[in-house]
């Protein structure tokens, strides 16, 4: 047996050991009953006396050296562990945790989800329509023939007339899905109906007609989606925006029912801290028309700005002081927020002409329809003051939600 080589190897291995369990493995390997060294001692019994004495001494020295090494190593590791343990006892629970990153959903997605969830609780199903529409569905079928003055309320972006676009339901396959198409696609130009000129829908209301053409009441649906207006862009106007349309039709759905359903849903979305008010309005496809306004109760805005909250986990104290300053500034600004009513929804009782147009039995059905702007909800909820922020995709904005 080459004692030198054996020692060298053992020392090399020991130098890499950091844990008690590894050290134990090392001990078994070099000092254990089945180790080369033990086997050697065992074999000594068969050696000559001379050899026994010389080799035995050497082997004993080796065993002592290795035992020493073992003990030193053990001390060393235990000491390390106890320091680590001590350090653990110095746990500073006020030190910010290590930041775990995740991406963020767009505020419009978040708000849409809340609104949709509230209506789903009331039994409304989600249906979708297409963004490219025909003039017929966007206007004529909604009681707005081409010379109707109310068309002025919906400044329209028209598609170049040479285009022929299939208007198909967005959802494929499943027959249980709510969608209006049976594969019958609309094409401008070769379509039989008048006013098949194509446009970008100015509201989600065309789905009232498309849905009713394919479904018999009773039903309750909501239609979320993107809409477009010919509009000069500024802090409160955009060429594109998002709406949720709603339609509930049955034999006995009344104006009072409308009020109750909407009030419940809005209170759910704004977590009760909201006042709702109803006043007269006008849309050609309802009668009577109603406008819904809300007022966030001034006392009840403790919802903390999420931007501030995330800043509060800033690592160094300097930053923390900053965040406190920002929070105070924010509170100051909030107290200035004017106590005013905000328009959030246009609505009314479905005009009987629509029921007639889709072929429903005369005088049998009645119900309500409404349309709300998702951006408006989001701006109120998150106190966003410029609608353009939603579509500018600025990472500093997106990360706040």
């Amino acid at each position, binding site marked *: 047996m080459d004692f030198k080589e054996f020692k060298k190897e053992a020392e090399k291995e020991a130098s890499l050991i950091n844990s008690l369990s590894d050290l134990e493995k090392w001990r078994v390997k070099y000092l254990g009953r089945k180790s080369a060294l033990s086997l050697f001692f065992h074999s000594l019994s068969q050696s000559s006396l001379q050899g026994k004495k010389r080799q035995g001494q050497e082997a004993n020295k080796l065993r002592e050296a290795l035992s020493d090494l073992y003990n030193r190593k053990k001390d060393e590791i235990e000491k390390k562990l106890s320091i680590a343990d001590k350090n653990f006892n110095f746990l500073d629970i006020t030190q910010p945790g290590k930041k775990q990153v995740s*991406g963020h959903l767009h505020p419009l997605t978040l708000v849409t989800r809340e609104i949709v969830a509230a209506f789903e609780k009331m039994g409304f199903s989600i249906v979708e329509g297409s963004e490219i529409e025909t003039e017929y569905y966007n206007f004529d079928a909604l009681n707005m023939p081409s010379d109707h003055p109310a068309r002025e309320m919906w400044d329209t972006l028209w598609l170049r007339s040479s285009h022929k676009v299939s208007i198909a339901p967005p959802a494929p396959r499943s027959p249980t899905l709510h969608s209006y198409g049976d594969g019958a696609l609309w094409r401008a130009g070769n379509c039989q109906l008048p006013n098949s000129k194509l446009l970008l829908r100015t509201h989600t209301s065309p789905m009232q007609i498309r849905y009713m053409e394919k479904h018999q009441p009773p039903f309750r649906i909501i239609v979320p989606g993107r809409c477009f207006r010919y509009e000069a862009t500024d802090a409160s106007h955009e060429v594109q925006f998002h709406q949720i349309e709603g339609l509930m039709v049955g034999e006995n759905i009344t104006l009072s029912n409308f009020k109750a359903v909407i009030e419940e849903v809005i209170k759910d979305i704004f977590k009760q801290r909201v006042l709702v008010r109803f006043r007269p309005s006008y849309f050609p496809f309802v009668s009577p028309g109603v406008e819904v306004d809300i007022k966030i109760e001034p006392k009840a805005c403790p919802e903390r700005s999420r931007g501030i909250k995330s800043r509060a986990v800033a690592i160094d104290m300097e930053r923390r002081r900053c965040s406190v300053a920002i929070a105070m500034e924010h509170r100051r600004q909030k107290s200035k927020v004017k106590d005013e009513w905000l328009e959030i929804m246009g609505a009314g*009782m479905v005009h009987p002409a629509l029921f007639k147009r889709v072929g429903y039995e005369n005088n049998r059905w009645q119900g309500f329809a409404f349309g709300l702007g998702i951006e408006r909800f989001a701006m109120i909820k998150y106190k966003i003051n410029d609608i353009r922020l939603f579509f500018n995709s600025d990472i500093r904005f997106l990360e706040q939600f």
Partner: protein
Amino acid sequence: MKVSYEWLKNLLKSFQKGPDELASLLTMYLAETTVKTLGKRPVLDVELLSNQVSWASGHLSLSREISACLGKKFNFLKPILKEDSKILAKNFLSLEIQTSNCKYYSARVIKGVKVKESPKWLKDRLNDCGIQSINNLVDAANYVMLETGQPLHVFDFDALNPKQKLKKTIIVRQAKDKEKINTLDGKRYSLIKEMMVIADNNQPIALAGIKGGQETGVSKKTKNIILESANFKGSNIRLTSKALGLITDASWRFEHNLSFELTQYALERLAELIQQIAGGNILKGKIEKIQDISGWEKEKKEIPVKWGNWEKFLGWPIPKKKIKQNLSLLGFSFKEREKYLLIKPPMFRNDLEIKEDVMGEIARLEGMNNIPFILPQESLTLPQRNEFWIFREKIKDWLKDYKLEEVYNYSFVSEKDKNILPLEWQQKMIEIENPTSSLTKYLRPTLLVNFLKNVYDNFRFSEKIRFFEIGNIYSTKNESFVFGGVLAQKDISGDNSLFYQAKGIIENLFENFGVDSDDYEFKSLNKTEFSKLLAKGAAIFNGKNLIGVLGKPQKTLLENYNTEGEIIFWEIQLTSLFNLINEEREFRPLPKYPSVIRDISLLIPQNILIDVILTAIQAASPLLLEEVDLFDIYTGENLPQENKSLSFHLTFRANDHTLKNVEVDEEMEKIYKALKNIGAKIR
């Protein structure tokens, strides 16, 4: 619309409310109203709804509404004229209507008026409403318009075609192309045949329903006048007003199709007022022509409403007495029958056609805000699941967990963006006929363009960008939902790690949705339209269907959008993906026998695809090899050129016994051999 508080107060007699109170009353019962100017003469701004303009744009009608809200009935006074007993107006004026855009025209002739300044009370009221005082005749016409809502005009009798000395002619007709008119404000317009004018038998004397002509306007010398009160087709007035960019108090009202009743009432009221403030002799009789008989009759139609309708539609019981009381407050008249009411709309109102309109009016008077809260008594049905919606929302949640930010970009791209795209792409883009600016001229054919702008914009704030979007893209064939993303970093890593990250995201997502890995494959981009957009990358196919792409955008694109660094983009058709998902999972029994793991490292020329290597390994040990996991890829230093080093964990398992080392050794031998056959060196 500006409304004089003093005027309303005067009309309403014992009215006690202050301007603020009045504004909030109108807001809740009619239309949104704010107090514009305070001080001695407060002015209200009433934003009439589009169906209200035709009947509520005058102080009289507003007073009727306010009275009704306060529980009092408002009565319109009947104008009282002193007509000349002998001299007939028709001997001085004849009327011809040559266009169907004029539904009704009426006129009166007054001789010997005196033009002077208006009385103060009248000037003050005009001023409240934002109209400048000119002289008593013009002011009277404006005043009666503000009072009733009917626009009116006064012509200087003698200024009409001077060749006709005694008897003048008024012709309502369409303009001739390029015909000119000088208007009262000193402007000159060139007309087209779609526009309607009032003319004498020589030239146009007014832009019908919009503005009077200069030559026939009232001047200091005016002695004899013609009063016009007409009813024009709203759509034609709107067309002219829009085409000339000329919106006036008159055109705004006419656009909304006024009632015939109002036209008649206002003419008499104007004659009365002029006589009162300018004197003159009103010639006997009015000159009038009705062109639209059916419209006339429609206004007089009665609407039957059954007693049972009220509660069924509105939702709460209203006593019969209350219904009748409210109807008369609003100015309705009605005949009572046993089972229903036969209801005639209030004076000047032509916007009420069906029973729902009438019931709505009663709800409005009760106060929309006072409607009782009653939840529907519908059967309890579960909303239908919209699987496509749920699917998209799930994608969003997962991508968020993969540390991506969700964006909502514009559906539009600009003219400039279009020109940057390859011709094949340009050809299928949808163009907007009336864009708001060059920025909204086209609909996006892919999410890529706006993503590149996002990268450029955000590189100012961030070294790394990870964005995704779910939205529509548009082509001349259709619009379709896609799910796209972009990964970008300023630093150039020199390897393809971003590409593999993106690929990993897509593969994980597919796996999460239970898409069978046999259902899709990554293939060359070459034959797809995306080869023009992406310099390198992969197309994702389901059989022969292209369902998506991922890769690095063409250099020319990156240069055009000033984006440096590395960028990987992907876009996947959501309907295609949706058709492949399979979320039904089935439990696989846990293995009974342990597995054996062996590692293997090999050196292989770079151009041998991983796919080929994996196939070779799997084919060599078809039964016992359970899983192959590529855990390390290395290229670069210390390797022979054009070679890569790959390391795999190989997991072996038999389902009926514990594997012995010898068995695994045998499998490994087979694998070594297979790998050597494709040019690998085992390390």
